[in-house]
């Protein structure tokens, strides 16, 4: 019973802290670019404001358009419940393995793309088509990285994978190195950050994710934005906890949990700084360069898989 409460607490923390992580990335980015940063709580205020506003619907919006925000938020929430944030061995980790996690994201994206096309504006369709192009290329790369992890740990369950990496201690594994790099590239593409997409832009010709949700307003928009922030946080936690799992609680004792909170805060802060630095240094690439970028991710994933088979077995 206690462990279920802990799992629930972890998922709630995940959902509540996701806007803070997005705010942190934005804050660091502003500091790096010599601008005055918004307060860290700004994403919460934005969400609060959006929840208070009326949701406007276009005349030819179908029922699909109205339920998609809930599907997207629900799928992302389920995904967040699966990822170990503070402790391993929680019952929620057994809901789904890492392949189903990819499936949750795919489900959310599929419905978002449908909603983008539903109203029939030019931008929505364009955004949907671009998003699907990118995700069709990113998903194989993601799965190759996931398969590499699964082969290293002999399991696709995230909790087991993390425990395996923890029990190995500090081992220089070429496969995990390449899987990490592939995962970082995929995370950038999937969460729509620079250099693939610019989360801050509303310039018509370059936007991808923003183009799809252009028709949304009010609480629908708030849910979708929250889901996007949650997705960013999920990828951050995946990278931080799978490849650098030190500090995560293996037993549900208060001390271990406190250590885990401190560790994940430190890891996510560093990741946020890295992401913001990357976004400040790089320029957004042309849409037609994105396949090459994701081909690189695919190659990295593949070399990781091969190096596990060739170098690490026996």
């Amino acid at each position, binding site marked *: 019973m206690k462990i279920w409460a802990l799992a629930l607490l972890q998922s709630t923390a995940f959902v509540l802290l996701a806007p803070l992580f997005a705010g942190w990335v934005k804050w660091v980015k502003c500091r790096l670019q010599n601008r005055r940063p918004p307060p860290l709580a700004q994403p919460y205020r934005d969400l609060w404001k959006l929840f208070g506003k009326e949701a406007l619907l276009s005349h030819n919006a179908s029922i699909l358009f109205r339920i998609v925000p809930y599907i997207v938020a629900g799928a992302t929430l389920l995904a967040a419940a699966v990822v170990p944030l503070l402790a391993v061995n929680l019952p929620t980790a057994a809901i789904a393995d890492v392949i189903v996690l990819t499936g949750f994201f795919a489900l959310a994206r599929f419905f978002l793309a449908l909603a983008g096309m539903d109203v029939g504006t030019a931008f929505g369709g364009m955004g949907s088509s671009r998003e699907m192009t990118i995700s069709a290329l990113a998903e194989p790369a993601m799965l190759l990285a996931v398969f590499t992890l699964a082969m290293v740990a002999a399991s696709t369950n995230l909790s087991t994978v993390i425990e395996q990496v923890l029990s*190995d*201690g500090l*081992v*220089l*594994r*070429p*496969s995990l*190195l*390449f899987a990490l790099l592939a995962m970082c590239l995929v995370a950038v593409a999937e969460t729509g950050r620079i250099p693939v997409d610019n989360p801050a832009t509303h310039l018509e010709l370059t936007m991808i994710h923003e183009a799809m949700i252009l028709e949304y307003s009010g609480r629908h928009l708030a849910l979708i934005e929250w889901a996007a922030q949650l997705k960013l946080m999920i990828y951050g936690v995946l990278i931080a906890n799978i490849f650098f799992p030190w500090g995560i609680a293996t037993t549900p004792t208060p001390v271990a949990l406190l250590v885990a909170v401190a560790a994940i805060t430190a890891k996510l802060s560093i990741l946020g700084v890295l992401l913001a630095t990357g976004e400040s240094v790089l320029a957004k690439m042309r849409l037609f360069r994105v396949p*090459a970028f994701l*081909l*690189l991710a*695919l*190659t*990295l994933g*593949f*070399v*990781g898989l*091969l*190096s596990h*088979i*060739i*170098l*690490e*077995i*026996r």
Partner: protein
Amino acid sequence: MLAFLPLYQQAILSLAAMILFTSFVLLAQNGVLAIIHVFAWQGLLVAVTTAFVAFDSGAGHLYFSALMTITLKVIFIPWLLHRLVRRLGIDRETHSVERPARVLMSAAALVVFCYYVAQPIQQYSAALTRNTIAISMSVVMLGMLMLITRRKAVSQVIGFMSLENGLFFAAVSATHGMPMFVELGIAFDVLVAAVIFGVFFFHIRDSIDSLDVGQLNRLAERDE
């Protein structure tokens, strides 16, 4: 299994994987200068791996091989190619890869093939580096693939040199290096080859006004 090895032995395996990755990058890279730089990085990785293997096996002459690799393949040949490319005025040119996805897929297939070919060899070796034999064979194969898929002379030369990197790495990982005599001979061969290629670049360009080797087909005699 891997966790019981000392850290520098794990480093050898990681470096081997990185060498394989540079081969993939060479295959997919477009810019002329970028190809040369990646080639230099590959040489550096091979040299560092050789030094680690020397430390692991106690074969002192491998330090010398590593040093030779650095002077030749990390400094001299990239510098020579850099200068040639600038003098030919093609440093901003891009050698686009035709169908990069297909090239990379066939490269992956080649690596799997090499893995199966190298497996019987690996069974007779007890050295730590036995697993890297497949990697070095794949580097050779990927060099060949680069020779086949590229049309521009400079990239083909890089493909050839990277193939030689693979051979050297195979010698290091399978038998802790070749005899010094052979190694020196190969090093000078590569050196001379680099210089001769440089001369050839100018000749090819003089005769067909381009470094696109595909155009050499047009030199064939034809019944008009």
